[in-house]
């Protein structure tokens, strides 16, 4: 059984901080041991989710949270917000580009979930299972 370490980044609902999410994601993916191309992929996918969360916005929440779950198997990324109206955030026609990018770059994505998080996605460390 593999130990999981959680790292959490909490960001304001502002476009200027998505670059912080990208940078932190790169560092974490590098720390786990992903190769450079996969680090870039994870970074891009995370930014796409941040973009969408920001484009919807929230009437009640000031910030949202990215939880990185690191293990020997790889990385799981969960997006969380106190505003529970943020669910199934992808779906309208303008999302086609973002969705195709996320889907191509990550292994598994839970777009619509009954769990507490907005969205969850994962990348395995060895191979593309």
């Amino acid at each position, binding site marked *: 059984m593999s130990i999981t370490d959680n790292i959490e980044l909490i960001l304001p609902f502002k*476009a*200027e901080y*998505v*670059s912080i999410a*990208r940078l932190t994601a790169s560092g974490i993916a590098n720390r786990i041991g992903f190769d450079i*191309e996969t680090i*870039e992929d994870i970074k*891009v996918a995370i*930014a*796409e989710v*941040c*973009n969408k969360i*920001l*484009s919807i916005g929230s009437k009640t929440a000031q910030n949202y949270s990215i939880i990185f779950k690191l293990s020997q198997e790889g990385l799981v990324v969960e997006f969380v917000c106190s505003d529970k109206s943020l669910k199934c955030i992808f779906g309208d026609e*303008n999302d*086609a*580009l*973002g969705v*195709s*990018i996320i889907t*191509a*770059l990550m292994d598994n994505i839970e777009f619509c979930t009954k769990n507490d998080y907005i969205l969850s996605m994962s990348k395995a460390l060895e191979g593309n299972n």
Partner: protein
Amino acid sequence: MSSELNFREEQLGTAMKIYISGEVDIYTSQSLKSRLYDVVDSKQMDLIIDCRDLNYIDSTGLGIFVGTLKKAKQFDKKIYLLNLKDNIKKLFIITGLDKVFVIE
């Protein structure tokens, strides 16, 4: 605030060449949009976008390229994308936009 996206333009005969450098993301994309739309509207020429120093682009930026292309087509003009880095070319392929633009 450090500037993460920069442009440089030069006229090449009947085409406009634009160098984009830095990162296009949700934060910097508005300046890309106004710059590209502006050039297409005011010059009404073919557009050559040199991406040799473009390090990052997201779906917001790709959408702006698509929007620019639609505008250019109104004037019967083309858009050429030059020197895409591998990570960026990958996004064009993933999204199918490699078939929409002339990528060289």
